[in-house]
């Protein structure tokens, strides 16, 4: 069965420092991989996705993610965190075959301190 693990409930980082939000997955084949962000009282917003090609994917708001096939990971990164990046981040996967179902992790709350 497909699953997504976000091992950290919360990540704390100082403004200006680099940040990493971790994600590992378990799914057959080579899935599509996504990151979404949720701000308070809002719906989830798409940040970036990996389909194929370069393992480093760039997305919105300066975020990027690195796909590692051998470690089945898709960690979200940003070189310099902003206070406004504080939000809830969800990793998600979708199999390339068998349907459109997207599976989400439990989310990681990012707190950026000024």
């Amino acid at each position, binding site marked *: 069965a497909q699953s997504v693990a976000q091992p950290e409930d919360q990540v704390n980082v100082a403004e200006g420092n680099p940040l990493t939000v971790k994600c590992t997955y378990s799914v057959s084949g080579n899935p599509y991989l*996504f990151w*979404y962000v949720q701000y308070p009282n809002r*719906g989830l917003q798409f940040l970036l996705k990996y389909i194929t090609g370069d393992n480093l994917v760039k997305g919105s708001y300066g975020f990027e993610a690195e796909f590692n096939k051998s470690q089945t990971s898709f960690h979200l990164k940003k070189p310099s965190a902003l206070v406004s990046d504080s939000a809830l981040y969800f990793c998600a996967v979708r199999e*390339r075959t068998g*349907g459109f179902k997207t599976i*989400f992790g439990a989310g990681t709350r990012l707190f950026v301190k000024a």
Partner: protein
Amino acid sequence: EAGVTQFPSHSVIEKGQTVTLRCDPISGHDNLYWYRRVMGKEIKFLLHFVKESKQDESGMPNNRFLAERTGGTYSTLKVQPAELEDSGVYFCASSQKGFAGELFFGEGSRLTVL
């Protein structure tokens, strides 16, 4: 362009009552999904429509949940009768054709069953 809209934003009902949640997807999006997030847990897939047809309803918890998408436009999710464990935030999302497309989410409908 209007985004995904959900109604109501918050509903408080007694155990045993009925609630109907509505979702209006982005115009032209054939794919419509329902998800649910219980406090602190992962966002769980409920079902997926392609136009008016149910493509995958493997995540529907039980027969107290009924989803419809008349005419391939808006969708409703009815819970009848509601139980305490049905409480959570119900998200609707839509996407364009194709396997690699990202999901566009509504702001969610928070259901509280007392």
